[in-house]
Structure formats: structure tokens, C-alpha cells
């Protein structure tokens, strides 16, 4: 596993972002975390060519202004951004929504776990690029 990964976390929920970053640091302290509070903030960061592109994006779905689904569409439309691996990271347990988003180019649809140790597990799987092992919904 390379250890200079950058992860962009797009979520309007401060608690979730904090817990996520804590778990990332537990997996590997050298991983850089960038945060955005909604789709719009994420897109303006990504579209600014001065910024280095992240390796992974973990994106919530229900967010103000530009939601996760719209943001994913924008990313997929942009040639420079489209190779970034986007993981939907949400409370939703809607299977239909999950299928639709995977068709729209999300690598995986991850339901936010209710136990922090699960975040650790998910992250270690994702960072080792073994996300096939993640439980699919």
C-alpha cells in the first residue's frame, strides 16, 4: 500500500467527517484528508487546476446546494476528474439508489457504519484497493 494517498471527504455532517478522519489516521497517519461540506465546495476544489487531485473521494449523498449524485455526474463529465475513484458514503440503505449510482460510475456504495471499527475496516480494504471484499448492498 502506498502511504501518500489523498482522500477527499465530501459530507455536510461534521461528526461523520471527524470520525472518518480519525479512522483514516488510525489506518495510516501519512494519508492526507481534505474535506468539503457539499458538492459545490468539492467541485470548486476539484476544478481548480492548482490543487492536486485526490486518489479517492468519499461522498455523502444528501447535501445542500449540490448533492452527491449531481456531484458524481459532474465529476464523470470532466475528463480530468473522471479517473478519480468515487465511493458513495451515506446513511441511505436504498438499494435502488445504490444500483443507479454504481451505473453512474461510483466504485462502491458504502452505508455509513454505526461502529467506528467498521470505518477502519472499510478504509483498510479500500486503501489496499480490495474493495471487492466490501459487502455489496
Amino acid at each position, binding site marked *: 500500500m502506498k502511504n501518500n494517498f489523498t482522500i477527499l471527504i465530501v459530507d455536510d455532517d461534521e*461528526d461523520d467527517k471527524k470520525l472518518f478522519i480519525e479512522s483514516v489516521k488510525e489506518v495510516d497517519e501519512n494519508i492526507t484528508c481534505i474535506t468539503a461540506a457539499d458538492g459545490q465546495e468539492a467541485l470548486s476544489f476539484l476544478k481548480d487546476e492548482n490543487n492536486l487531485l485526490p486518489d479517492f473521494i468519499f461522498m455523502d449523498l*444528501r447535501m445542500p446546494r449540490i448533492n452527491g449524485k449531481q456531484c458524481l455526474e459532474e465529476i464523470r463529465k470532466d475528463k480530468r476528474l473522471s479517473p478519480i475513484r468515487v465511493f458513495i458514503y451515506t446513511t*441511505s440503505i436504498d438499494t435502488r439508489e445504490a444500483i443507479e449510482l454504481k451505473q453512474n460510475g461510483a466504485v462502491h456504495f458504502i452505508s455509513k457504519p*454505526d*461502529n*467506528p471499527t467498521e470505518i477502519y475496516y472499510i478504509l483498510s480494504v479500500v486503501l489496499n484497493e480490495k474493495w471487492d471484499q466490501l459487502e455489496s448492498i
Partner: protein
Amino acid sequence: MSNENSADLLTEIGVLKTHLLEAEEAIDAIKNGSVDAFAIKKDGKAEVYTLQSLDYAYRVLIEKFGEGALNLTREGLIVYSNSYFSELINIPHAKVTGSHILDFVSPDSREEFREHFDFALQGSSKAEITLLVNNRSIPVYISLTSLQPQLSTVGMIITDLSEKKQNEQVLRDKNLELERLNKSLEQFASIASHDLQEPLRKIKTFTSLLIQRFNDDLPDKAKELANKIWSSSERMSLLIKDVLNFSRIVGSANMFITTDLNQILNNILGDFDMLVLERGASIRVEYLPSIEAIPVQINQLFYNLVGNALKFYKEGRPPVITISSRTLLPGEAAEHAGLNGRLSYAEISFKDNGIGFEQRFAEQIFSIFERLNNQQQYSGTGIGLALCRKIAEQHQGRIHAEAGESFGATFYVLLPLKQSV
């Protein structure tokens, strides 16, 4: 006598001769039975003279006829109306005869009426039009027939469609209402899957953080309380998931495909492998048919029934479950309330030797949130069997249960082999 006078007299004689000739023609026509009324123009107005010499039985039949009947001249003047028609438009009978039919046809329908009327002069024609009388619209179905060669008039039968239209409107309104309800159900599903889940997930996250990070610092009593918070919220999320499942089944329009029930059951039994081993259960399965069904729903149905049979077992008595099937022909199916008597059904039974239930609760157990056993002993949300019933109904089928003599229960699921004849 002047020349002028004799010329006048000659003219008058000529006119009288014409009248006489017309009168003779009329009498002939009456004798032949080829007219039953005269429309005579007097001072620019039409006056209608009806004749008594008609076939009495025929007239009574038309009078008692449950539909409007008119006889119209080629110009559209009403020379005969039965009382049903005058009651339908609520105009005295005497005023109806002599009126022009277009006076009762709504302006929007007049052109259409004229077309059909012209067509009927040569044969017959049928149409749905609207009458308009005293600002009251009456939707009607009309059937026009030329009465030639005996009569030069056109017969018109009028069927009142008001009730039918009202029913159609009610049906349309109900459909709209149903669509609206389905929409709000979807909205509810989305709220349930996200908005209700979110705060709950946080309760669980922070409770588990509390337990994990401060385990050593917490007194035992506090740990116990934290565990209680965790298990209650765990149960709440299970409830939300089940309610969500339930609402999706209710609101979904799904595709029926030929489904091998053996395959579905095998998949489910695979899911229960561990539990079967743990409980020392034995499951006997007979050959099941293939039916037209929504596979994901049948999967859920079988899962819930097998799951229940494994869950409600009696301590010290390993579960024995028998799943069998027989076919009900249309005649037999008709004997069961709620089944479509024209279809053949598969009756699949799930028999167990578990704790069973009292027969008087046999219906109640299918109600949502209904539980007969306490939460501590047998976990569950009380949605499983309600969901089973919904699924059976969605397939035009039924589900019912029978309590065993002293223990055990049998659940019967009746599902059509095909969804239509």
C-alpha cells in the same frame, strides 16, 4: 260575375284541389301505416299532429323501454318521443314533440351529431354526444337508424351515460389518489431509509465509541446502560429497515416472471445453514412447482416463513420443518375466499414443530407490529408475517396459518401458477 272574379275563383279552386290531393295522399299514407305523425307549418311554426292508429303494443314497448326513443324527420324535427326521453331532459312531453333535436344537443356536440345524422339518413350510425338542456349536460350514447323504406324518418335511441361517466370519474379520481399515495409512500421510504436512520446511526456510533474508548473508566452499571442504548437503537434500525421493506412491497409495480420455487427455497436454506446446524434442525423439502411470480418477493416470503420456523422453536426440541406443495385446480381454488376462481394455485405449506400459537390468534399474527411472544425470548419487529401477507396478496394469493394440536404450526401459502387465465 266579372272576369276578375272568375279568375279568382279558378285560382281558389286550383288551391283547394291541391289541398284535397294532399289530404288524399295523407289519408293513403295513414292507411298504409307509413306515417305516425304530421308536422305542419302554421304561421311559420311547426305543429305536429300525432295519430292514434298505431300499433298499441309497439308503442307501449317503446314507452316502457328503459332508454330514450325518438322519431325524427329528415330535418331533425321530433315527431315522436317516449316519456323516458322527456323525463331524461326534464321537459314536458308535449314540448318535446315539435322541437328540433338540435335544441337539446350541446353546441360542442352539434357538428358531430349532424355528421352522424346525415350518415344515418342512408343507414345507421352510433356516437357518444352530450345533450344540454336548461344548462344541464347529459352525456348520452345515441344510435340512429333510418326507418326507410317504410318511413322517411330517422329513429334515435338515447342511452343515458351520466352514471357511467360518474363512475368513470370516480375511478379516475381514485386512480389519481392512488398515484398520490404511492408517491407519498415512496417519499416516506426515502425518509425512512435516510432521515430516520441518520440520528439513530449516530446514537449507535457514539454509544459504541463510549464503550470502546472509556470501557475501563466506566462503572459496570454505566456499561450496562450503554449496552441497553446500543441494543435499543439496534432494534430501532431493524424496525426502520423492515418498515421500509414493507412499504416498498406495497408500493412497487413489479414484473412477474416464471420462477422456480425450488431454486428460491434452496438459496434461502443456504442462508440458514449456520442456524440449522446450531439448532440441530432438520428440513424436509418436497418438489415445488414453477410459478409466475416476482422472485425477490417470493424470496422474502419464504425467508420469513423458514426464518420463523427456525426462530420459534421449543428449547430441547430441535426444529423439524416440512415444506410441501400441492396444486389446486380452478374449482378448488374458488372455494377459498379471496382467490381468483379461474386460476390454478400452488398451495405451499410450511409445517413446523415449534412453540405454535393459539388458534384464535391465527388471523391476528398477520397484522403489522403484532407480536404474540415477548421481545426478550424471541426477537423480531412484528412485520415479517404482515409482509408475507402483502406479498401473497400482490400475487393474487393468500396466506393463512393453522396451529398444531399441542405444538407446532403450519403456514399455507396459496399462489397462482399463472397470473392470468
